[in-house]
């Protein structure tokens, strides 16, 4: 299969403008003849659904929470990038593009990434006009900060609740369209299949989570904005409900899945406190600006934060400062994460589980005073104390890496269309803009860029060549899909085994974290594949559920999602096995420099992996989209 990314010809800076001119338009009076389904109401979904409604399309929007305002995007803390150059510090569209491509370790597409940087400026204008209360300076203009090691201050923020404020902005635009009748919102409704008619995506099958009713919805195009799949690891910073089901079902209907093994591990999360742990909480990366990371030189079992204050300087190993003197504690996310894992693997980890390192503010407090530190990090320190019961002003914090974001996702072309005609993927659900590693504050940017400024144009190009006729939900394709969905749910309910969906999910998470996390090797991955196959088999013969199909049944919802996570997990392993290079967020042990640092291999692996489903329990087939770099020079990262 030849993957056509449809990147327009011509100079980088003119591609998008040219493309917008060349796409077919739908006449304003005809837009009302087209129906669009948007699955998801996060930043990507809400902004797309609202924009489609404003343009005049008939929109149905779906989310599994009780309100569109609760999508996982709400939890983003740090901020959103935009190349406004308001600080006059040398930022530009090209610089943001360059940082994003480089940050992605040259595994993203130039064309898409440049466009992202280009429309980033419009996002901020749009949000301010909606009443998003971004942080401001005393003069009344917008404030910025530098984020995630960027050399310029281009990050806009609203306290530590940027995602919340951006989502509430998009939610308000969506609410306005719901009020006007252009968007019909379906809360607590989960998409369980994509429906194809004559080779085109023409609708979805959903389950009403309150009544259990299985319903069909038909449309001229389907947009998936269903977020990332980080919860395949069970423990992650994602919301509990985040899942891969919508994307996975689309994959099984023919949409290729790209780079599934690209996941981002965030170095500063609150460590696991016990078996009961249900999710992990992110502590802002900004903490590394003043906190010093260390572990004892010799491992001490069960070392508490309090006892750590007694350990003399010469018995401490500030390992990031030691190994990377130039960058010290500010090395990129993947380097910080990997080194934390290394010292813990050496038996030098701290805390009750031995899976934590210290982040110590005592020097900053000595240097700047408690008030200054409090001014910068007060709310984070409070949050830490709230969760752990320990006071970071008195003793060091404990942190450990956790899964945070998934760069992989459904393969899309420049128009954000998947390989299934009429099915689009936007936001974290697609693979497109972050290569093998995402820069801080770029996911919010991408979600809103896709939803407000890209898909409203590109979808018209497709719809303009579609007939107005609607497909009836009585069509055989819908009936078959409904039947399959029902049979699957009945099957899950009938197994009546001995293990709960959560137990399976936890087992899957452990396998993924151990063998397909920060550091991978062929032997481990091969073993993991066997383990997942066995887990899948056990799941389908031993999962235990109660209750019925026709009521609110959260364990049924969970089991249905875990079943998809298991299959995706196996594909992640396949993808990781194929990529015998270290790049972006992951370290492939077979591919390292003499100093033990990550070694990327551009000659062999400068491609987007795109996997094609072949049928239940069949091996998937790998297609490759070569990455072409015309505007940036590929360099190896070095932080020494």
């Amino acid at each position, binding site marked *: 299969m030849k993957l056509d990314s449809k990147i327009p010809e011509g100079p980088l800076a003119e591609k998008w403008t040219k493309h917008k001119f060349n796409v077919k338009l739908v006449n304003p009076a005809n837009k009302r003849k087209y129906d669009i389904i948007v699955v998801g109401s996060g930043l990507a979904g809400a902004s797309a659904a609202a924009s489609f409604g404003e343009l005049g399309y008939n929109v149905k929007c779906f989310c599994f929470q009780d309100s569109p305002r609760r999508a996982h995007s709400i939890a983003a803390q740090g901020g959103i990038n935009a190349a406004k150059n308001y600080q006059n510090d040398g930022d530009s569209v090209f610089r943001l593009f360059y940082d994003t491509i480089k940050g992605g370790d040259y595994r993203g597409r130039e064309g898409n990434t440049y466009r992202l940087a280009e429309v980033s400026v419009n996002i901020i204008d749009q949000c301010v006009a909606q009443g998003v209360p971004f942080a401001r300076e005393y003069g009344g203009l917008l404030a910025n900060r530098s984020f995630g090691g960027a050399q310029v201050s281009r990050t806009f923020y609203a306290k530590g609740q940027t995602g919340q404020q951006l989502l509430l902005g998009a939610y*308000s635009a969506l609410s306005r369209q719901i009020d006007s009748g252009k968007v019909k919102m379906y809360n607590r409704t989960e998409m369980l299949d994509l429906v194809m008619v004559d080779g085109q995506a023409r609708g979805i099958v959903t389950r009403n989570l309150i009544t259990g009713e299985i319903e069909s919805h038909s449309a001229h195009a389907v947009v998936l904005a269903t977020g990332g799949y980080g919860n395949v690891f069970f423990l992650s910073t994602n919301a509990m409900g985040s899942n891969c089901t919508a994307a996975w079902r689309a994959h099984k209907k023919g949409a290729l899945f790209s780079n599934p093994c690209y996941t981002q591990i965030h170095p500063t999360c609150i460590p696991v406190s016990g078996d009961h742990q249900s999710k992990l909480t992110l502590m802002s990366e900004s903490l590394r600006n003043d906190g010093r990371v260390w572990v004892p030189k010799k491992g001490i079992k069960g070392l508490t934060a309090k006892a750590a204050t007694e350990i003399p300087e010469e018995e401490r190993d500030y390992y990031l400062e030691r190994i990377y003197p130039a960058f010290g504690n500010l090395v990129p996310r993947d380097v910080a994460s990997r080194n934390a894992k290394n010292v813990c693997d050496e038996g030098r980890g701290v805390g009750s589980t031995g899976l934590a390192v210290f982040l110590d503010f005592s020097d900053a407090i000595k240097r700047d005073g408690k008030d200054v530190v409090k001014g910068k990090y007060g709310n984070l320190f409070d949050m830490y104390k709230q969760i752990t019961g320990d006071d970071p002003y008195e003793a060091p914090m404990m942190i450990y890496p956790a899964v945070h974001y998934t760069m992989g996702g459904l393969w899309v072309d420049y128009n954000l269309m998947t390989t299934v005609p009429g099915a689009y993927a936007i936001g974290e659900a697609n693979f497109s803009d972050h290569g093998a590693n995402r820069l801080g504050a770029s996911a919010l940017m991408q979600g809103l860029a896709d939803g407000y400024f890209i898909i409203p144009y590109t979808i018209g190009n497709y719809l303009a060549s579609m007939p107005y006729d609607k497909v009836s939900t009585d069509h055989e394709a819908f009936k078959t899909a409904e039947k399959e969905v029902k049979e699957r749910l009945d099957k899950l309910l009938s197994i009546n085994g001995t293990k709960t969906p959560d137990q399976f999910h936890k087992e899957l998470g452990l396998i993924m974290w151990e063998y397909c996390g920060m550091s991978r090797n062929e032997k481990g991955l091969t073993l993991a594949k066997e383990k997942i196959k066995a887990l899948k088999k056990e799941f389908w013969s031993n999962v235990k559920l109660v209750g019925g199909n026709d009521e609110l049944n959260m364990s049924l919802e969970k089991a249905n999602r875990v079943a998809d996570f298991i299959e995706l997990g196996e594909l992640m392993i396949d993808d990781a096995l194929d990529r015998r290079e270290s790049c972006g967020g992951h370290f492939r042990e077979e591919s390292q420099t003499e100093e033990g640092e990550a070694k990327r291999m551009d000659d062999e692996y400068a491609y987007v992996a795109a996997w094609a489903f072949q049928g239940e329990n069949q091996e998937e087939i790998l297609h490759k989209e070569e990455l072409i770099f015309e505007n940036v020079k590929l360099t190896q990262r070095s932080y020494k």
Partner: protein
Amino acid sequence: MNITLKVWRQKNAQDKGGFKTYPVANVSPDMSFLEMFDVLNEQLLAKGEDPVHFDHDCREGICGMCSMYINGKPHGPKDAVTTCQLHMRSFKDGDSITVEPWRAKAFPVVKDLVTDRSAFDRIIQSGGYISINTGGVPDANEIPIPKKIADQAMDAATCIGCGACVAACKNASAMLFVSAKVSQLAMLPQGQVERKTRAERMVAQMDEEGFGACTNTGACSAECPKEISLENIARLNREFYGAKLKSENV
């Protein structure tokens, strides 16, 4: 720790519902309140009993989904936290804890501790926005906004739509929620154009949903996990009566 839970069980909206008691053993003080429920639910599931249904998603205090009425208080005994941020170290070994859903006419129970809060969405749909389309807006720095105003608008905007204010109020009033949105937009220059109609429409929708009247007891703000201030209610009253006086509809 060993805990005894007295939990409201209700099969569906039609069911009458009632309390059931469950002992939960080996509770770690580091567990969150919801993780303690996870443990209980795993035990129930293993025994073939229906788990206790409750709403939750982010477990970080920001999505507003979790909503438990714990020992007579929405989101439990600690100030300024949501249920998901409450940890078992706030309780003592041997405690008996009563857990109920939000109780309000406008938030009917769906199942166990899950309620239907879509009334809040409908209030926002009645004008809780600025009517602009995507694109064609001025540069973000075109209109400077004094930092103090922006910060105040931000404080009001932090409402997570959880409904604890309604659950805390003896009249089940939604004034705090509505006032937070009205205030945020009324304070910002972008919100001026629709200021009058917004306050009127949102209040009318609030009444239509069956929320009670505000008698200024302040229970809402005291129990609000985001500490939304009562000043917003005063501001809403001003906006509303100001709107009424000048409204073309009167």
